[in-house]
């Protein structure tokens, strides 16, 4: 039987990363993936990632996928696609379906990096065509170029629900509401804010009463729920929609590990059933490792680092490096992983009610309840300052592990500091040149350039814009505030596109001076 040093199941961010590290140390590595394209979910992620520069921040997910794949090819990792691992047996043997044959392979080490599957919720009508998973929506629109629907209701305000809502709008769908049974937005505030400002209403403490339709979805009714998640009579709201999108969390896809006999645990903090493993990802079966979501639900950025750790650990297991080298490599990676696991959304903080930022500033209640920071809350954050002339306004209000803006400014007027989760602050002693690099670098689309003294009675707001068609210079439309409410007329005075902005266009709109701290989005007439 054909034997590899290392077999990796899953060519997503963690699997590819593991393969790269192991192959660099000289292991003969193969990666199997059931999909036609590698990259796991990365190729469906068209937004810019968070994190630090060293770990692919501000790069769009699918580009990270391309980079990883290139790196894997360069390292000599064999990636086999359309290859479904159907079973894992004793002696680290796997069976892989490749076209119409079952191939048996053994690995001296195996890394399982199968990722996650979507959770679902039930409501009357949840089986109707038109009720789909958020992952299905991403697959349809970002891989296959087909709109998942025209009028869509999103259930779930975690990062997936927020990001997919935005993506749906980017491909031309109308998102009529974003609904979550929880009393507050689950995902990053900045993801919520960029959805809210386009006019999508957020219904927290609401959930779906029923999906309507005979042969497919034609409408949906939602209602408010009390603390015990029971419907409050009389609060029903109806929407005409053709699609309901469910984004209610992920569970580790750990079936292969269970099948192989790894000792498992049910760990709600990790999203479900995961193998018990050590700090290197090694399971109860020596030589079988895990990395990425299959070992606990996190972000793709963490998955890539976990993959690298498992990759070097497999190399050590097979004698390709010694304990000292392993320790050295892993310490560095763990440091990076640790930095990603900081902040308000860290795994350790799941379920905790956080009232203040690390800086001691009260969290925006409105952001949690409605998806946007209220006018009377925004001024208290360090990224929001005022001065004559053009300058950045950074509406970054939660501690998340992300710092590309700091490096983006050629004048170094943005400071985050050593701690990657700190809120960005403006160094007011440095003059902004209005280049817009910070606006385009912000994965959360939370940075604006404002010029409060643009001309008599008027100010300009420069905002990130990732929709088609692009407005034209001189065109007049409407400015929307953070809540998506129309607040004033706006005229486009400048549009910047640049390779360096990576598809994020910078629109500069002229608005009445008193609207400069309100107007945050542009709607074409």
């Amino acid at each position: 039987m054909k034997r590899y040093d290392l077999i990796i199941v899953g060519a997503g961010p963690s699997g590819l990363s593991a393969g790269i590290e192991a192959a660099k140390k000289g292991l003969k590595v193969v990666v199997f993936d059931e999909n036609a394209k590698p990259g796991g979910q990365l190729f469906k992620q068209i937004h810019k990632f968070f994190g630090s520069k060293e770990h692919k921040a501000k790069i769009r997910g699918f580009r990270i996928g391309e980079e990883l794949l290139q790196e894997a090819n360069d390292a000599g990792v064999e990636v086999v696609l359309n290859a479904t691992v159907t079973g894992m047996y004793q002696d680290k043997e796997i069976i892989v379906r490749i076209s119409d044959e079952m191939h048996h392979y053994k690995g001296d080490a195996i890394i399982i990096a199968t990722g996650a599957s979507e959770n679902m919720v039930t409501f009357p009508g949840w089986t109707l065509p038109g009720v789909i998973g958020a992952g299905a929506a991403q697959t349809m629109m970002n891989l296959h170029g087909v709109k998942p629907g025209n009028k869509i209701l999103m259930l779930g305000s975690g990062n997936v629900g927020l990001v997919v809502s935005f993506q749906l709008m980017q491909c031309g769908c109308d998102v009529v509401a974003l609904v979550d049974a929880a009393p507050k937005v689950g995902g990053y505030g900045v993801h919520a804010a960029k959805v809210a400002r386009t006019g999508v209403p957020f219904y927290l403490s609401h959930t779906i009463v029923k999906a309507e339709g005979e042969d497919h979805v034609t409408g949906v009714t939602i209602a408010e729920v009390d603390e015990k998640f029971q419907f409050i009579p009389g609060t029903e709201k109806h929407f005409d929609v053709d699609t309901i999108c469910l984004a209610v969390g992920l569970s580790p896809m750990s079936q292969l590990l269970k099948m192989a006999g790894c000792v498992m645990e049910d760990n709600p903090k990790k999203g479900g059933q995961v193998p018990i493993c050590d700090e290197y990802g090694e399971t109860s079966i020596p030589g079988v490792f895990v990395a990425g979501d299959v070992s606990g639900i996190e972000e793709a950025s963490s998955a890539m680092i976990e993959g690298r750790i498992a990759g070097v650990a497999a190399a050590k297991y097979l004698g390709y490096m010694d304990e000292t080298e392993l320790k050295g490599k892993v310490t560095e990676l763990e440091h990076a992983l640790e930095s990603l696991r900081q902040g308000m959304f860290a795994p350790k903080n799941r379920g905790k009610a956080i009232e203040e930022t690390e800086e001691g500033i009260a969290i925006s209640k409105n952001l949690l309840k409605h998806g946007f920071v209220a006018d009377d809350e925004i001024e208290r954050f360090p990224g929001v300052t005022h001065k004559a002339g053009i300058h950045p306004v950074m509406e970054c209000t939660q501690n998340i592990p992300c710092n590309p803006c700091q490096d983006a400014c050629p004048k170094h007027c943005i400071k985050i500091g050593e701690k990657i989760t700190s809120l960005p602050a403006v160094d007011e002693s440095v003059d902004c040149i209005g280049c817009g690099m910070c606006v385009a670098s912000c994965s959360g689309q939370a940075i604006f350039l404002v010029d409060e003294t643009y001309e008599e009675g008027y100010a300009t707001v420069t905002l990130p814009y990732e929709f088609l068609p692009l407005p034209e210079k001189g065109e007049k439309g409407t400015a929307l505030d953070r809540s998506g409410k129309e607040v004033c007329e706006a005229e486009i005075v400048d549009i910047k596109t640049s390779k360096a902005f990576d598809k994020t266009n910078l629109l500069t709109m002229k608005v009445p001076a008193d609207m400069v701290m309100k107007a945050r989005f542009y709607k074409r007439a």
Partner: protein
Amino acid sequence: MNSINDRSRYIGEFVPAADDDMLICRCEEITKGEIRKAVHDGMFTLTEIRRYLRTGMGLCQGQTCAKLVKGIVARELGVSPAELEPVTSRAPMRPTEMKVLGKEVKEEE
């Protein structure tokens, strides 16, 4: 896991609920009410529920409903879902035609 489970312990009476006709297992079309009733018939483990009702035994092998079933059974038994051992995973991970499964290849080095 092998923890003592007294099957005669009192878990309350089966009380019909408004959403008992909610479909839970999409493949085998098993409802919430059927699952709740099965718990009261003595099916205290997810494995027994699966064998008794066929939840998770359809084409998708429980990839969609496993967590939902777990929640329902846990609530009915008055335990936390994490206390319930998930059902065993079985090969093949995806439905595989007999002619394909029967065609094995063992490449040489």
